[in-house]
Structure formats: structure tokens, C-alpha cells
């Protein structure tokens, strides 16, 4: 009898609540692939959405709709009024912020996006030089689907470690954690292309500074670890033995493929505060602008030293700039917080300390391979 009762209840529930789940049929939803936020007029938020439309008549096309409203949800409703399909954000891959809005503060948006269960944590966040609306609405000749294009552009560069990873998850982590600030890529339109032009530095939720793409390498070097990135560096001619640098320019360019990096940060003086940052880089040399005899271990040693020095010098320069704009993209605060007990660190307190922080940077560079000659 129990069996029959259970089966009866089961079938009863099956029939009665069969239609209760909200259906989102694939062909009936408009899939937002990219969302751009700008600062609109009168403190309003201007939203531009790239929506993928699939119609049987004209295969698939991309619709760009924008709306202005006080809130993100409000503009979504407004966009919904302009499209034939229900707008859904489950397939969203990229969120862009206009420069002006970024300087005004993106904290609210990061909070909203993280709270929305529809959006995944792997969304890539980036800043646009100028306005997102003008970037998205520009009719690129060779780009069909601007949403997917920007996503692939950013994803590819992040995967190859050419750019700091800026998934929503990581950005939210940086935002909420004490002693680490957000650093996300900046993109811009360059004639008929979209390109990554640098890195935006944030102080809490506000954009405070910019670094070039070359400099972004050093931010990433001190922030994360590398496995496979390639970078270019110059070393002064004088530093190398004269016999090796005939017919070479004043500054010799060297291209290095990083194989792995190790980073050690130690707080040695909590008062100032003073840090010791020791970075070990193992790399493979791809190109060098001088006819050096790399079979000679002495030359190699010298070259390694010089590259290490050069990296350290550049790193220091970037660090000073970051301290200037008061953005702790290096995450030094985390080391401080984990080394000093009962520090009762707050964001303000740390940033006061940070601006006066001293970092002794030491870079050990090792060339593992320098190419094969036949």
C-alpha cells in the first residue's frame, strides 16, 4: 500500500507541478553577449547591450541596443521593450565600463553583477577608453559580432598571459579583499580594430591610473605567476662586454619567453613598511638585438644579470607610479595583513601606509635555453 501511496503522490506532483518551472527556450530568448556601461546624462546610467539574434530568415545577426536609466535593471527592462525576444544575461561574456564611469566608480556594478545568479563568475571585465557606446556602435568592416570578438580578444590574451586576468570572480575578490586593488585591461578602437591598450588601476572602486601594455607585464609579474608569457625588454649597451656588442643599438632589445616565475615577498619592517620582494624568473631567450656569443657561460651570466637588473628597474618604476596614484595592484597589503598580527587594517589605513612603503626588489633571471643552431 505504501508503494502505491508513494507512487500516487509522485505522479500527482509530477502532473500538478509539471509547468511550474520558468521556461527559457533557446530560440525565444535574446542572448546578451556583451554589456557596456557608460555614464549618461543627469547621473543616469547608459547601458549598451550586444544581443545575438537568431532568426530563420537571416541566419544570425547582432543587435546593439542602448538605454538610459537610473539602474542597471531599469535599463534592462527598457532594452527589453526594444527587442522582440526576452533579454537574458546567462550567455554574457564581457562587461565593459566607459572610462568616465570607471573614474566615477564601478563598485556598485561589481556588486550587482556578483549578486546576479544568471551571470557567471567567468565574465571578463574591462574598461574602454572613451565611451563604450561609440565603440560598440561603430560599424567595423571586418568584425561581424562585436560581442564575441571582444570576448575572444580578451580571453586569448589572458590565456596567453599577455594581460592580467580580469574575470568577474577575480575582480570581485580584489575589490572585497583588503590589501589588493583591482587592475583590469583597457581596450580601445584603433581604426578598424579593437585593441588592448593598457591596464586600468583602481583604488577600491575608482579608476585612478593607467599603465601601458608593456608595463602591465610587471604588474602581472608581481601579482600573479607566469607560466608561458613572452615579453620584451631592453638593456643598455654599456652593461655588456664591448666585444659582444658590435654594430648594435644603444639599447639592446631582448625577447624572453618566460617558463616559470617564483615570487617571495617578506615584510621586514612593519613600521615604514618595508618589503623584500624576491622574484625568480626562468626563461628562454627568443631574440636578442646583438651578436652575442652565448656559448660562453660568462656572457650568459652577464646577460642574465643585466636582464634581472632591467626587470627590477622597470618593476620599481611601475611600483612608484602605483604608489603615486595610490593603487595597490601588487597586493602588498595582503602580505602586510598576513604578517602583522592585530593590525586592524582598514582600507584607508593601508593606503596611508602604502604610499610610503618601501620595496626592495631583487630579480634573479636564468636563461634556460637560448635557441638551437644547426
Amino acid at each position, binding site marked *: 500500500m505504501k508503494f502505491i501511496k508513494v507512487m500516487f503522490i509522485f505522479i500527482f506532483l509530477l502532473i500538478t507541478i509539471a509547468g511550474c518551472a520558468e521556461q527559457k527556450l*533557446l530560440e525565444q530568448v535574446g542572448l546578451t553577449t556583451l554589456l557596456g556601461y557608460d555614464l549618461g546624462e543627469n547621473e543616469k546610467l547608459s547601458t549598451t547591450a550586444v544581443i545575438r539574434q537568431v532568426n530563420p530568415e537571416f541566419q544570425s545577426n547582432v543587435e546593439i541596443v542602448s538605454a538610459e536609466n537610473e539602474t542597471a535593471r531599469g535599463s534592462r527592462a527598457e532594452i527589453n521593450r526594444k527587442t522582440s525576444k526576452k533579454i537574458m544575461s546567462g550567455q554574457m*561574456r564581457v562587461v565593459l565600463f566607459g572610462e568616465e564611469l570607471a573614474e566615477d566608480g564601478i563598485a556598485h556594478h561589481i556588486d550587482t553583477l556578483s549578486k546576479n545568479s544568471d551571470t557567471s563568475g567567468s565574465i571578463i571585465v574591462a574598461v574602454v577608453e572613451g565611451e563604450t557606446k561609440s565603440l560598440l556602435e561603430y560599424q567595423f568592416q571586418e568584425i561581424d559580432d562585436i560581442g564575441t570578438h571582444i570576448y575572444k580578444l580578451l580571453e586569448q590574451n589572458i590565456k596567453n598571459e599577455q594581460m592580467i586576468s580580469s574575470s568577474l570572480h577575480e575582480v570581485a575578490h580584489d575589490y572585497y579583499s583588503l590589501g589588493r586593488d583591482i587592475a583590469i585591461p583597457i581596450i580601445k578602437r584603433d581604426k578598424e580594430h579593437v585593441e588592448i591598450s593598457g591596464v586600468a588601476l583602481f583604488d577600491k572602486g575608482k579608476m585612478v591610473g593607467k599603465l601601458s601594455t608593456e608595463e602591465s607585464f610587471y604588474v602581472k609579474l608581481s601579482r600573479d605567476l607566469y607560466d608561458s608569457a613572452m615579453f620584451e625588454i631592453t638593456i643598455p649597451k654599456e652593461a655588456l662586454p664591448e666585444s659582444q656588442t658590435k654594430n648594435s643599438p644603444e639599447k639592446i632589445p631582448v625577447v624572453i619567453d618566460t617558463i616559470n616565475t617564483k615570487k617571495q615577498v617578506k615584510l621586514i619592517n612593519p613600521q615604514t613598511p618595508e618589503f623584500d620582494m624576491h622574484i625568480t624568473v626562468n626563461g628562454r631567450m627568443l631574440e636578442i638585438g646583438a651578436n652575442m656569443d652565448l656559448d660562453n657561460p660568462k656572457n650568459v651570466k652577464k646577460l642574465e644579470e643585466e636582464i634581472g637588473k632591467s626587470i627590477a628597474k622597470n618593476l620599481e618604476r611601475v611600483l612608484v607610479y602605483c604608489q603615486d596614484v595610490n593603487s595597490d595592484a601588487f597586493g602588498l597589503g595582503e602580505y602586510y595583513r598576513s604578517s602583522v598580527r592585530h593590525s586592524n587594517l582598514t582600507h584607508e589605513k593601508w593606503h596611508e601606509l602604502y604610499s610610503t612603503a618601501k620595496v626592495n626588489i631583487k630579480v634573479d633571471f636564468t636563461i634556460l635555453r637560448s635557441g638551437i643552431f644547426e
Partner: protein
Amino acid sequence: MFKKRFNRSSKREKPSIDANENKKSESNQKENVFPSSSKDYLQTIKDHTNNPSDLVVKTISPNITVTYMNSLVDDRTLKEQLIPELIRHKFETPESLKSSLFIPEVDVDDQINHSVLSMYNGTVLIHLDGFSQVVLAKITTTVSRALAAPENESQVIGAQVGFNESLSSNESLIRRYIKNPELCNERFNVGKQTNTTVAFFYIKGIASEQMVNTLRQRISDLKIDSLLDSAVLAEYIDDNSLSPFPQMLLTERPDRFCDGLLNGKLGVIVDGSSMAILCPHAFIEFFQSREDQNLRWPIASFLRLLRFSAVFLSIYLTPLYVAALTFHYEIIPQSLLVPLSESRALVPFPPIIEALLLELIIELLREAGARLPTKVGQTIGIVGGIVIGTAAVQAGITSNILIIIVALSALASFTTPSYMMGNVIRVVRFPLILLAGFWGFYGIMLGFCFILIHLIRQSSLGSPYTAPFYPPRFMDWRDSIIRLPLPFTYKRQKSVRPQNEEKYQPEPINPEKS
């Protein structure tokens, strides 16, 4: 649940029936014995058999009467051996007749019922005037097709012989594989009307005695009307007849059957059925083929993994499609989004209707193919595959991605070596599609849990159905979804509870020697 009730009621009824029978047999003791005079004997036989047209009564010499069923007796043996011998010699007693007959199965009996019944198994009754006993000489003729390759369980490498419908030839096949006096063979008569012979095989010293007793009890307790096929018997004697999952293997391969016996399993063969029952059989073993033993172990392991993943593929692929397209567009990979939505754009139905429609078409094709004669069946396959498949897409009734998915899951379900299990896998998909269409992944998970709990609750002849995974028997994993080399699998499966766990004493593996 139902099973328990069934058991309880049968227990209640059993003693009363036994008591009745006892009383009857006591009172009828005298009537059951043959009369000694030839004339009365003939009358008795005629009374007990309703005098059918194929009953032959012959008086060979004044005191010897022979009765038999014409259709069941081997004519040649009768004419060339039995009757000349009866004419040549003079017999004093049935005992001396028995000892001088040169026929393998000869017996002396005085019970009418038993003797008459044995006549229907091809026995010749020889009555000597003046004795109340008859000599039973069994010279059965078997009407059966020749041994042929097993059609439902074909394999590439290995023996190409299958059981046929004759019990004696099946028995001989088994005896040829296992030449061992420990191979026990018990007989039962099942079915009030059909009196079907059921043979029960096991190897003494390997098979668990408790299981042998259980199965023997289950078969001998059966009070059924008729038994025409072993599949029916399997349903009568298995642990839970309500479950869609078969708990006993039906095989037509003698090598698979013998492999089971050698591993401590019990086998049952029903006269007139070309399928033998093998039990206890765990769920995982339905996806193993005898061929796995014949192949090298890495290849066999790969094939087993392939088959097992095919089960999941077959069950979950279509529901996943339905759930993803109805509720969870988020999980569709970006590269698949465009082709998927483009192919869906023309379809007028929601995914659940679309999927059910196509699954039904595939099932119809399969069923039509199975019912039609072989030659026509192939044509139906082509017609169904090409015409319905392409036409359905062009007409915009289904999306072509779904066609791929449905065809793939149908294909995957056919890789199961047991046809019975393959059927279950195909049918289980339908409720899951419904659940996926109603509640998406939640529905699929609900269905999955339901199936999993159901499987864990099942048992096969008392041994756990989901062994060796639940309860975990790590030693048995060596021969489950993978097959390790033979030296590693020298132990019998624990879930069968064999009396002798080791097949043989393994030699220590010495890599230097080889």
C-alpha cells in the same frame, strides 16, 4: 513491497496444500499401483491417458505389453533395438528385463501417475503379465533445429554456437564445456498443464549452498499453470518482479553460461527455450561480454569502458538536450550556440515534444525491424533512417542536431551485450526526457537519484545488485568496468558468495622469468 506480500501469502498457503496432498496420496496409494493382469493394465493406461490417437499399445509376446506415445519415441531404436530384444529373450521379472535391456535410461516403477507422465517424455512402458510393476525405457526422440550461431548475442572472437530449444542438446553442450563430476544437474517439472522440464545446474563446491537451496526452493515452490520460456521463469523466480531491470541474465551462449557456472553462479535451463538463466547477476555484469575474456586486457578494458559510458550517453544525452534548450541556455558552449539555435529556429515544437517525437520514431523503427522478416527488416532500417531522418529535418519538425543525438543514444543502447538490459535502457530514457522537459536539470537529477536508489535496493538471488560498487568490493573491481590481466583475476566475484573463492593458486608474477 509486492514481493514481500507475495511471499507471505505463499508461505501461508503452502502447509495446507502439502497436508491435502499427503492425505490424498495415502488414500490413493492402492489405486495408484498398476494391476498385474495385462488386460486390466491396458484399461488403466487408457483411462489415465484419455486414449489419444498417438498412443500405441502392442502385445509382443503373450505376456509382454508395450505402450508408448508414437510421436515422442525414437522409431529406430524402438524397431531395431528394443522390440527385437524383447522378442529374443524371455523375461521372468521386470528386474531381469531392466538389467538385460541395452538402453541408457531404464527404470522399474509401479506408480501409475508417474509412469504415465514419463510416457509423455518419450518413455516406453513395458508390462509383464502378472506383475504390478512396469519397466520404463526412455528412448526419446528430440525434434529440434540444428545448433546454430547465437543470433542475439553474437561475438566476433569466440565460439559460434548457441543453445537451441532442446534440453538434451543444451545439456550436452554444457557437459562438453565442463567435464566435471561436480557439475550438478537437478530436474524439476514446472507447470500443471505443460509439465515442462526445468534443469538446474551448479557446480558443487563452488556455488554457494545457500543460494542453491534458495533457487531450488523457488523453482519447486512454483505453482503455475504453464511454462513456455525461460524468460517467464526468470520473472517468476527473481527477487523483484516489479523492477524494469532484469535481475537474472538470459543468455543463449553456452560459453557464457559455463563461465557463470565456473564462477559460482547457478544456471537454469527450460526445455523448449533457447535461453538459459544465469543468476545471481550484478547490474554491471550485464554490460560485460564473454568476448572480453578472449581479447587482450587493455582492449577488453577499453571496450568495457566504452560500453559503460554508452549506457550513460544513451540515457542522458537526449534529456540533457531537452533540459539545456528549455531551461539552461547558459551552459551551452558559445561555439555551439549558433548552430544549435539556428537548427532550432525552424522547429515549431518545444524541445520536449521534438525529442519525444524523434525517440518514438526510433523506437518504432526498432520494433518494426524486430517484428518483420529479416530481409524486410533491413529495408525498414534504410527507409526509416534516410527517409524519416532527412525528411523530418527538411520539413522542419526536428532539428538536425537532435537527430544526431537520438541516433547516437539509440546506437549506444545497442552496444549492451544483453538485449533485455538494452531494452530497459531505452525505455528508462522516456521518463527522464519528461522530467527534463518539466524541470530541467533538477528533473534529470531527480530521475537519476530515483534510478540509483532503485538499483541499490535491488538484489539478485539475495546478492547486491550494484556490487562491486555498492557495497564496495575493491578486489572485484579488477573485473568490473575494466578487465585486468588474467593473473590478477584469479578470484571469483565475492557477491556470488562462492564456497571456493580462488579459481586457482596464482603463481607469483616474475617479470625476469619472461
